């Protein structure tokens, strides 16, 4: 049963990933991206990491995908399909991608990892993760929060600057 679900999720997420890359309209890419994330969140659940899967859904799907959709809506639909799709480009990109896949896949499969069998589920609980984050990994945790803060400030500044030079009437309307 789990195998069946695993196979299904892999097919769904790889199909989504291919859609996300191959289709021409960015909005369709985004739908594919959403599918890929849904599928891989399922894979993460099968791996027993429920909390990580949740975060995948919440942040990749709820946050990033929505933000991207927003960016797509801001741009006009016309400019979304003028793209260079010459056979050379496609072949080159796919060639590099499959080359990578072959090399890294081979390396991974031939690698010897200290196998431990499936681990105890208690070590995968959100509680355990929370304790780890606040004890052993407190420093990286803080670093990540600093990174996020910097990213938010940076994006606000970048987005703000481009707003300054529009000369449309702004009086009487509060900033959103």
């Amino acid at each position, binding site marked *: 049963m789990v195998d069946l679900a695993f196979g299904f999720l892999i097919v769904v997420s790889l199909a989504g990933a291919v859609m996300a890359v191959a289709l021409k309209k960015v909005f369709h890419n985004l739908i594919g991206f959403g599918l890929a994330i849904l599928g891989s969140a399922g894979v993460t659940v099968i791996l027993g990491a429920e909390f990580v899967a949740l975060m995948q859904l919440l942040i990749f799907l709820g946050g990033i995908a929505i933000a991207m959709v927003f960016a797509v809506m801001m741009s*006009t639909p016309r400019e979304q399909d003028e793209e260079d799709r010459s056979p050379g480009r496609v072949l080159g990109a796919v060639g590099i991608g499959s080359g990578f896949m072959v090399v890294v896949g081979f390396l991974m499969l031939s690698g010897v990892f200290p196998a431990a069998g499936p681990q105890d589920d208690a070590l995968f609980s959100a509680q355990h993760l929370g304790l780890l984050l606040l004890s052993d990994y407190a420093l990286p945790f803080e670093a990540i929060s600093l990174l996020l803060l910097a990213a938010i400030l940076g994006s606000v500044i970048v987005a703000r600057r481009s707003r300054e030079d*529009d000369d*449309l*009437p*702004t*009086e*009487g*309307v509060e900033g959103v």
Partner: protein
Amino acid sequence: MSTESATLKAYAAHPRTPEYAPLRFGTLTPALEQAPEDGTYYLNMGPQHPSMHGVLRLLLRLDGEKVVECEPVIGYSHRAHEKMAERGIFAQFLPNPSRMDYLGGMIYNVGYCQAVERAFSIEVPERAVVLRTLCCELNRISSHLLWFGTFLLDLGAFTPFLLAFQDREKILDILDSASGSRLTYCYANFGGLALDVPEDFAERTRQYIKEQRAAFHTYHELVTGNVIFRQRCEGVGIITQDTILSYGMTGPNARASGIAYDVRKAEPYGFYPEVEFDVPTRDEGDCLARYFVRFEEMEQSLRIVEQCLDRLPEGPVGPKKPLVRVKPKPGEYYHCVESPRGQFGMFIVADKDPEPWRIKARTPSFSNLSAMAEMLEGTMVADTIAILGSIDIVMPEIDR
């Protein structure tokens, strides 16, 4: 225009036809095909839109949700009322004015009659004068109630709409019992009224006044103090006095900006000089001020109705035989009345014929709408709807 037909040429040569004015409206339409370069876009609101009060079309150029430019496009319910007047005798135009402004039909009907009576010196019995005033004020309340309902509907509140309509229904019943029609009245005719009121009229009206005062209390509790309503209205769509004067806005919209002009006081007609009432004004000029002015007007109207009922004389309500053919005196005449939306004027040009040579109606909503386009710039889409609702326009009155 080389292929102009003989008929068209003759028509253009006719002294009645004015020169074609350059078309101001609709010049933006071709731009709908193509988005402007600067990231703004056109949004075509109406003529089929839930909150365009009939068939107004607003062409908005938007930057996100902000209105950059606004162009009202009118004419979708043009029925050539003024031209119709020239084709019949004066009495044949009687049913038309109430079709122009279907919310203030009684006032338009009475206004036209008074204009003709004043022009050709027709006597009106005292009872008819009082009854006309009374019915006009009831009509004003019903119009304001409908405005109240639709304005709140535009702001997204549904309940006040139905409450207001329930109260308006009572007025319509009363006017129905007197005139026989509910919306487009033809109650007044030259020299008086078509019918006398039924016996229980005074009693029913008094009962209604009592109920309406209680209903006003409900409205205030439900709406006036509401935080969201205040936020949506306060400081939104401010009309300055300059704008009002330059566009010739009248009525509650002008009074909400502190211009205490009311035809009933400035150029008294009918029974108004005899009754006591105030002209409510506000200084803010925003949507909230217009809301308050209309509310206070409804209360003043109730006062007038009460006084009319108290002082209703006995006697005939019109000439024994209906005055169908009036005897015109050549000349130009203007008479204006206070409609629920402002100054409604009838300009009559008469020669010796029994038909009017020309009738021009000065309708208030046209000026009000023209000024609105100026106010909308820089507001948000939601405000557009709120402002449009607060101005209270009636499209057939603009298009005629």
